[in-house]
């Protein structure tokens, strides 16, 4: 903490904590309060830090308005106004409750006492501990605004001001700053293209490992450029953005190139060129940090990486193309450049375990241990005793610990301690500890492992066994729609550094922190009006990856499906139901022995289909619909305009959408025998419908091919295709419903269900409804596969 840049960042953080403390009524004894340096003054000026901040604190610290409200792309948000509820992240809260925006601002007074307490207890030397101060701001300042813009949090304003001050440390008048952008490509390949037993666990370990790789790149950059951690604007999921000083005489550029080349050398040796680090920087005018020009720099820096990605390992090309002997391949990742003796059994507990390379063995072992990792120490030292495991990444070692205390006792001066989802102040007081946020929920298996001592994650077989109906597992992939656009121009004239930092933090908080909470404590974390199919706690899930703006979750099929709906509803509520911020997702449902890499591919394909459906959609059961159609909408607006025109003569059904109809049909308690035949005829109807639509589609294509008159084709398209989709199969549906037992048919609650299923508005959903019911009700004896 000696360098100039660290001192600047520290002084900004100190001031923010001091202000927060004063506001809350604490009078901490801060060792020395010096006047702002020139760099700090500059930074404050650029980012509009309130000038008279010390005097009228009550007016500066306000409830935080929702930043997402200001995101405006094509759909236009209108003039919504939400506020974050007042709150803070409590100690020992590994699963903090998800805050949902509300129309009115809360009174801030209730959070004053805990803030007072935390800040009053700070020891004099702790005021020089940047990561402790930043943690305090993260705990208490994430959902409070500070300064001119009431949608910028105290945390984000402090972080970015500190970053700019640190970047300006050596040259307060610098006209230029540098934005560093980095991207690890090939992640998908590394994570998903493996096939083996226990793949679930290994996959999780792989994604965790890559998170550490990203982290290591950040660490090396920070140390090469001598910058404090505040200058990391975003890091996660293989992407990173750092703010660095202006680049006179390409010093920064050279340092970055050094880090990149050294890292790529290591990546090439370790992953045989599967993973590549693109790292580049872009100079931009210093004053841009406070204007929308900054978003343009951000976009440009990202685009610049594409060039490197298309020329991977340029400097090592001769090494890469050297002919190498091929040996027996590793049975897990199929790398074949290692002579046989280096392949060993993947699982030495099992006699017939397949032969695997060292990386795959490491990942397999790591998968078993990950469950309990609480702290990770990063050190240059090659041995530290007491650690559970050691990983080598880019020339540095990462030691895994079950408890932060052990880690803290062992780790030395030069090591950094990463604490996984830990907001307790205690461990940050000493040493160099920083939080590491990870979307890492995973269900333990009930009778933990062979030795019963070590808790284990559930494996695919156990997940399948826990399923309702058919014994299957599911893979879910989801990501935020148009994220690039949101970051490039979503905020319009507001697109400056602090709001951008806020946006990226709030997005990644949702995926890294709140998603864990939603998985773990379902009922406490669902938004108020969420629709749910069951009130099951649906905990049989395993996060393989969650962070940034996307996720990959595996688990018991029916619970994964419910989780997908929970995530969507939670995310929409979290972002203030902004119509420009949506998610698309895809789910694939498979047997427990189905290769996971194929399941990953299948769910990726259905996610792609969802994106092609105009986004804001979910692909499930090989069908794609808008979330509104799945969840059930109260207005006919879900159908496209053509369809609406075609349906205008029809009455609007009492129940519209897939989810509510499933819910109602499940409620009817239809006796098993009837249910089975009902579902079967429903499926038959839906299949005939699909078949017919396909035939018509082909006919239409032939007509176009034969250059028939346009009128004729239009007639075909409109009248026939729509009529077939919406009307042709209604009679069969009526007949199917009529064959249900009288008791069910005459139940008063069944009348709206029957009416709705007989309605053309619901006709496109027949197959999804039938498939869902079929899977839910498939009895065990039928699904032995």
């Amino acid at each position, binding site marked *: 903490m000696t360098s100039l840049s660290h001192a600047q960042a520290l002084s900004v953080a100190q001031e923010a904590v001091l202000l927060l403390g004063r506001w809350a009524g604490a009078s901490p004894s801060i060792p020395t309060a010096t006047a702002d340096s020139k760099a700090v003054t500059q930074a404050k000026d650029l980012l509009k830090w309130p000038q008279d901040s010390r005097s009228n604190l009550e007016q500066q610290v306000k409830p935080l308005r929702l930043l997402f409200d200001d995101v405006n792309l094509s759909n236009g948000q209108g003039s919504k106004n939400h506020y974050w509820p007042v709150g803070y992240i409590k100690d020992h809260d590994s699963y903090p409750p998800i805050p949902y925006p509300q129309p009115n601002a809360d009174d801030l007074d209730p959070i004053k006492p805990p803030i007072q307490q935390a800040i009053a207890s700070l020891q004099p030397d702790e005021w020089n501990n940047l990561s402790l101060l930043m943690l305090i701001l993260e705990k208490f300042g994430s959902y409070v605004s500070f300064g001119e813009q009431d949608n910028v949090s105290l945390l984000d304003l402090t972080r970015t001001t500190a970053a700019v001050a640190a970047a300006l440390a050596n040259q307060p008048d610098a006209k230029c700053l540098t934005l560093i952008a980095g991207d690890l490509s090939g992640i998908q390949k590394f994570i998903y293209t493996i096939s083996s037993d226990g793949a679930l666990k290994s996959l999780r370990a792989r994604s965790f490992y890559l998170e550490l790789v990203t982290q290591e790149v950040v660490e090396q950059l920070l140390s090469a450029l001598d910058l404090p951690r505040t200058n990391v604007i975003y890091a996660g999921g293989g992407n990173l953005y750092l703010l660095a000083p202006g680049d006179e005489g390409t010093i920064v550029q050279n340092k970055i190139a050094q880090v990149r080349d050294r890292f790529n050398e290591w990546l090439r040796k370790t992953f045989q060129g599967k993973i590549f680090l693109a790292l580049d920087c872009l100079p931009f005018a210093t004053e841009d940090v406070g204007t929308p020009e900054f978003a343009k720099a951000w976009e440009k820096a990202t685009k610049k990486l594409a060039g490197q990605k298309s020329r991977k390992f340029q400097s090592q090309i001769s090494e890469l193309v050297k002919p190498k002997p091929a040996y027996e391949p590793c049975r897990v990742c199929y790398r074949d450049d290692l002579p046989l003796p280096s392949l060993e059994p993947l699982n030495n507990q099992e006699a017939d375990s397949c032969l695997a390379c060292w990386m795959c063995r490491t990942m397999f072992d790591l998968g078993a241990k990950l469950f309990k990792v609480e702290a990770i120490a990063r050190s240059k030292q090659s041995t530290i005793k007491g650690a559970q495991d050691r990983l080598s990444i880019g020339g540095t070692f990462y030691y895994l610990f079950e408890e932060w205390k052990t880690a803290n006792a062992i780790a030395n001066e030069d090591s950094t301690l990463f604490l996984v989802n830990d907001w307790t102040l205690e461990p940050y007081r000493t040493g160099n500890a920083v939080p590491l946020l990870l979307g890492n929920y995973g269900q333990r298996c009930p009778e933990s492992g062979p030795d019963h001592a070590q808790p284990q994650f559930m494996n695919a077989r156990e997940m399948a066994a826990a399923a309702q109906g058919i014994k299957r597992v599911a893979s879910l992939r989801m990501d935020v729609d148009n994220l690039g656009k949101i970051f490039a121009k979503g905020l319009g004239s507001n697109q400056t550094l602090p709001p951008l930092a806020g946006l990226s933090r709030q997005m990644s908080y949702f995926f890294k922190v709140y998603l864990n909470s939603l998985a773990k404590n379902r009922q406490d974390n669902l938004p108020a009006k969420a629709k749910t199919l069951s009130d099951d706690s649906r905990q049989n899930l395993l996060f393989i990856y969650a962070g940034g703006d996307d996720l990959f979750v595996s688990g018991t099929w029916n619970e994964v499906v419910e989780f997908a709906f929970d995530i969507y509803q939670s995310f929409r509520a979290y972002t203030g139901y902004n119509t420009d911020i949506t998610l698309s997702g895809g789910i694939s449902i498979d047997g427990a022995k189905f290769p996971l890499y194929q399941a990953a591919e299948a769910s990726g394909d259905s996610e792609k289909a969802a994106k092609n459906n105009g986004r804001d959609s979910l692909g499930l059961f090989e069908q794609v619909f808008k979330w509104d159609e799945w969840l059930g909408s109260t207005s006919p607006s879900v159908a496209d305009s053509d369809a609406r025109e075609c349906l205008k003569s029809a009455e609007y059904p009492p129940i519209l959408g897939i989810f509510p109809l499933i819910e109602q049909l499940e409620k009817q308690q239809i006796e098993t025998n009837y249910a089975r035949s009902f579902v079967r005829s429903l499926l038959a109807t839906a299949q005939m419908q699909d078949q017919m639509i396909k035939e018509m589609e082909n006919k239409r294509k032939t007509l176009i091919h034969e250059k028939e008159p346009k009128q004729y084709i239009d007639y075909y398209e409109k009248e026939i295709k729509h009529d*077939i989709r919406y*009307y042709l199969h209604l*009679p069969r549906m009526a*007949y199917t*419903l009529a064959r249900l037992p009288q008791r069910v048919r005459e139940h008063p609650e069944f009348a709206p269900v029957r009416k709705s299923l007989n309605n053309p508005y619901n006709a496109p959903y027949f197959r999804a409804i039938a498939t869902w019911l079929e899977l839910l009700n498939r009895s065990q004896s039928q699904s032995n596969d």
Partner: protein
Amino acid sequence: MDITQEIIKKIDGLPGTLKTYPIRDLVNHAEKFGPYLKQQRLETNQVRKFLDAINRLKSVLAQENEFSKIETEVVLLKPKLAYAAAREKAAKPLSQVMSKAIDKVRSKEDFERLVQFIESIIAYHKAEGGR
């Protein structure tokens, strides 16, 4: 106007052959006509021969894929209906409607539409409790 007349009028007024009978109208008509037939106490066995013949023609067409192979047989469906109507008063509305529809069958597409129509009527008839 009762449903039988409504359908007949619609079929008479079609711009072309039976394939121009919009499916939406066809289904909406069947939705009323099926229950009406049930009310008239029509049972499917009373028009069994007609239904069997339709099914047979369907499968012939599926194999041969050429309308000319069944064209004559389609026309011969009419006497089958007339016979049913003569035996059972309840079969008369169906006979009237179907004869009109059969008159407009000239092609494969027309025949397919005819089958869609009769299947829809029977489905709604059965949904109403008809046997």
